[in-house]
């Protein structure tokens, strides 16, 4: 208990850090993931190849290595002096985007072809087919895997702590450097993460219930 009470401001900052890096990377991952999924299902071969290459590369690279790339190589390409938070969010977002892409793609693929054919045959345009028929059905399929992906993203955000982003793992390191016993520190950090992951799974369960339809 003492560990938490004596160092509450740092813990609070760490918790806020975890929440914010998770939130920012989630947005990046969603936008990029949907975009790459769009590439992978498009009728344009070069874009499809690009999407496939992207997913294969991102999936088979350890996240820690990706962090190294973003901290040491990306600033060289863009411009030096980017903040660790921005670089960390980008690394996490890029990494997770490949998983989001696969989830979205399999969601689209679960919509039976007949649905789209029926929509076209009654004269719907491409946009209408997408909006009214395909996407609502795909979204429902995508929600459970997305929930797992964002929980995994929260857990992966710990790695950002090793790259000088202020978050919960950083707090754990700081406390062990200050000589506190690791067991209570571990328990508090665990509780912090559990709060975030439970919130995410709760939100997604709500979403799922909202989107439920009788089939």
């Amino acid at each position, binding site marked *: 208990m003492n560990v938490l009470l004596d160092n509450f401001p740092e813990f609070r900052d760490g918790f806020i850090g975890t929440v914010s890096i998770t939130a920012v990377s989630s947005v990046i991952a969603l936008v990029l993931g949907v975009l790459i999924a769009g590439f992978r299902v498009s009728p344009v071969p070069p874009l499809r190849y690009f999407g496939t290459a992207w997913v*294969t590369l991102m999936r088979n690279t350890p996240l820690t290595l990706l962090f*190294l790339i973003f901290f040491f190589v990306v600033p060289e*390409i863009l411009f030096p002096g980017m903040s660790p938070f921005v670089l960390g969010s980008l690394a996490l977002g890029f990494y997770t985007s490949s*998983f989001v892409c696969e989830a979205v793609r399999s969601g689209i693929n679960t919509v039976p072809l007949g649905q789209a054919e029926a929509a076209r045959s009654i004269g719907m345009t491409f946009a209408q087919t997408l909006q009214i028929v395909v996407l609502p059905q795909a979204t429902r399929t995508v929600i*459970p895997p997305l929930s797992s992906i964002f929980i995994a993203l929260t857990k992966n955000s710990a790695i950002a702590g090793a790259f000088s982003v202020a978050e919960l793992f950083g707090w754990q390191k700081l406390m062990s450097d200050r000589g506190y016993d690791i067991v209570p520190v571990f328990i508090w950090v665990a509780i912090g993460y*559990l709060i975030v992951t439970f919130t995410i799974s709760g939100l997604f369960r709500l979403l799922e219930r909202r989107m439920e339809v009788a089939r």
Partner: protein
Amino acid sequence: MSASVLYDAPGPKAVVRNRIYAVVGSLAIAALIAISIMRLADKGHLAPAMWDIFNYTGIRQNIADALLATLKAFGLAAIGSLVLGVVLVVGRLSDHKPVRWAATTFIELFRSLPLLITIYAIWVGFLTDYSMWALAAGLSVYNGCVQAEVLRAGINSVPKGQSEAAYALGMSKTQVMVSVLMPQAVRSMLPTIIGQLVVTLKDTSLGFIILYPELLQTARLIASNTQVNGQYPYVSTIVVIGTLYIAMCLLLSALATWIEKRGRRARTGIKVAPGAPAAGIPAVETVPGPDAGGAGGADPTADGAGGTGVTKD
């Protein structure tokens, strides 16, 4: 191209339009890559001298040692996580309430915590001087929980008649588990199990953070200790090490895919689970039962990562 869910079979106009998109898209992608390479070249990261360092025997030896260290940690973690997975799944399916409760709590807790937190705590708390064992222990605990869930899904997918028949023959509970349920569960879940091993292999790179001299840690040491023309060769080192990692992971994934295809051909009547899940998310796909906020649970998880769910990863 035939019709898909999204697109009707293209007519002449659409064919032309798609070709235009193809050209524009390729140009855009090529431009992105070219600009990145130009920027790196401008700063001297692609100079031959930067890549020359990998011709030194010392550096090659470093990389070979690091590769061995990574594989050692991976081997230990693979064995540890599979053994723990079996123990946990037996506990979780036990008839004794306290045992079941303990196993379930253990699985749900460690599956929903970042692996890094666990590894770091083990390292600082118990194994400060043995970073390899700390890494292997942390990996085993987390991945053991995920493997336990995978095995549970496998056991649940074995038709009920199998265990009923075994009991009818007078087998004991242990015999049923060992000789009837487990073999079929492992067989049907092999691709998923190997998929999780790919995640385990990727996660050995967390040894970087507890200063275990695996590939990534070595890469950083090489890059920060060898100066070439007044610059540190981060780019070339990362490319070399990244290629090694990707090659290793792809090999393991290919094994999973091959086993899956082989399983589809076999006439054993055992259904093989779909291919290797996305790494990083726990690949617990068809597990019924409550999802205690951890990754996985709600069917399905593309794990991908520990992804993950299935994560994390």
